[in-house]
């Protein structure tokens, strides 16, 4: 795990130079971006004017209600395709800049935090893993993401990426509505103990809001296995745990582990949700905003922005240390 001080030094000594280069590229990109728009708008104006003129030449009028106005229709069709071309070209110009930024800045930050991790800007955690984690049970309608970080932190294999999941729900008026199921970072790690069951550690909304009655309903909810009431009252206040086996759940969630999960929630990720399935630990970390994206129309040449990227990456990677996943004194290597 790296400290803010170390990152500051890294920023001064290395990142600042790259950001400077990128800033120059960004200004050139904006210029190209607007040139592209102006060029296409110019073409559209010429096309439309020509259309009207030819229309007048052929039919004696700029617009004749009695005929098909073929030249004008052709001009409009060509204008629309030019407009679409403009949009696609603009987004291509923007994406080139974003790709450059990710390759040069985000990858560098990832490597700075841990040399053995790899970063792929356009890959993401496969949908099968997201489904296997079984934290969200909505029927998936759209699944996409980016910024995959993958590798080994000491003895623990990890991978995480930004993920967006949408589902379709039928509203009261019988119309399909799109519901955002999850936006944020999805983290998968190899857990340091062997186990057979399925365990879910979810935020405790019911008991927090409704006390004893909430707890009663939690007990009646068998969809994720039995309710596991743990001894740590602080942990119990924040989380509700379901799982297949009372003893195995306590084997996985030792008092030490409960404390560590609690600290993770309190200090870093207030909305953390977890599941333990098939010897893997799955963690969902909801974020409202899109992560690791540079601005195109505003400067990225400031320390705060880089520090934000660093903090999110560092906090996520250090989950391995926070939860002590590298302690392998049990049967699992």
């Amino acid at each position, binding site marked *: 795990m790296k400290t803010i001080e170390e990152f500051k030094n890294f920023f001064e000594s290395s990142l600042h130079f790259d950001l400077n280069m990128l800033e120059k590229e960004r200004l050139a990109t904006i210029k190209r971006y607007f040139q592209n728009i102006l060029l296409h708008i110019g073409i559209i104006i010429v096309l439309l004017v020509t259309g009207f003129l030819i229309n007048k030449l052929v039919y004696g009028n700029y617009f004749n209600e009695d005929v098909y106005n073929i030249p004008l229709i052709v001009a409009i069709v060509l204008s629309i395709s030019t407009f679409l071309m403009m949009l696609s070209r603009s987004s291509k110009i923007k994406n080139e800049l974003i790709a450059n930024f990710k390759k040069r800045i985000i990858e560098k930050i990832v490597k700075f935090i841990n040399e053995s991790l790899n970063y792929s800007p356009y890959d993401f955690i496969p949908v099968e893993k997201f489904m296997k984690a079984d934290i969200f049970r909505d029927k998936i309608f759209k699944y996409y993401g980016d910024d995959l970080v993958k590798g080994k932190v000491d003895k623990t294999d990890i991978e995480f990426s930004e993920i967006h999941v949408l589902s379709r729900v039928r509203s009261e008026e019988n119309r399909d509505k799109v519901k955002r199921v999850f936006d944020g970072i999805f983290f998968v790690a190899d857990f340091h103990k062997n186990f057979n069951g399925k365990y879910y550690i979810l935020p405790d909304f019911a008991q927090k809001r409704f006390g004893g009655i909430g707890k009663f309903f939690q007990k009646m909810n068998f969809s994720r296995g039995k309710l596991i009431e743990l001894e740590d009252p602080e942990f119990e206040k924040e989380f509700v745990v379901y799982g297949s086996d009372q003893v195995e*759940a*306590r084997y996985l969630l*030792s008092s030490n582990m409960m404390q560590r999960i609690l600290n993770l929630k309190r200090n870093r990720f207030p909305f953390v949700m977890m599941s333990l399935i098939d010897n893997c630990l799955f963690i969902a970390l909801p974020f409202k905003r899109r992560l690791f994206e540079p601005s195109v129309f505003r400067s990225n040449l400031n320390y705060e922005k880089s520090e934000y990227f660093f903090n999110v990456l560092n906090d996520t990677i250090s989950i391995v240390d926070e939860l002590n996943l590298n302690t392998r004194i049990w049967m699992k290597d």
Partner: protein
Amino acid sequence: MSTELIIAIVIVLLIVFLFNSLIARRNAVNNAFASIDAYLKKRYDLIPNLVAAVQKYMEHERNLLTEITELRSRAISGNISDSERVELDNKISRALTAINVAVENYPDLKANTNFLQLQAALNEVEEQLSAARRAYNAAVNSYNNAVQMFPTNLVALIIGFKVRPFFEATETERQNVNVKNLFNS
């Protein structure tokens, strides 16, 4: 259907429900106790292997090894009371911790893969044992609540269910907490 009959049915159903919930909680306690037993047995099975693996190296701890072997044979002999058994298991825990500490003086032993595997297995079984004890206590807590709280306490009184004791850490276990921290998860 008369009102009295409806009331009578409701009361009967309520009693059945209370009775069943008590039985379920008692079974959960027994079940949790059985799982402690299962892990203890797993630990007994590991002891001879551990002794065999370390005795070549540990010349100065012969007494400790003989003691743990004896404790194990007494524990599996079957002719002992529950309280004796708890005491034996506590002694075994202490002896195992002592072996774990003594290992630090034998670098050769610490490099032995066979031993390392055994140590990992023992760490695992200790952690499982502690989990089973916590699960037992949680089950006892829920059972005791039912036995003492209204209205289940009335049914408990009729069928003779009594409060069960918790599994408590012994005085020595509490003192040994520093050593145990070495193997924290």
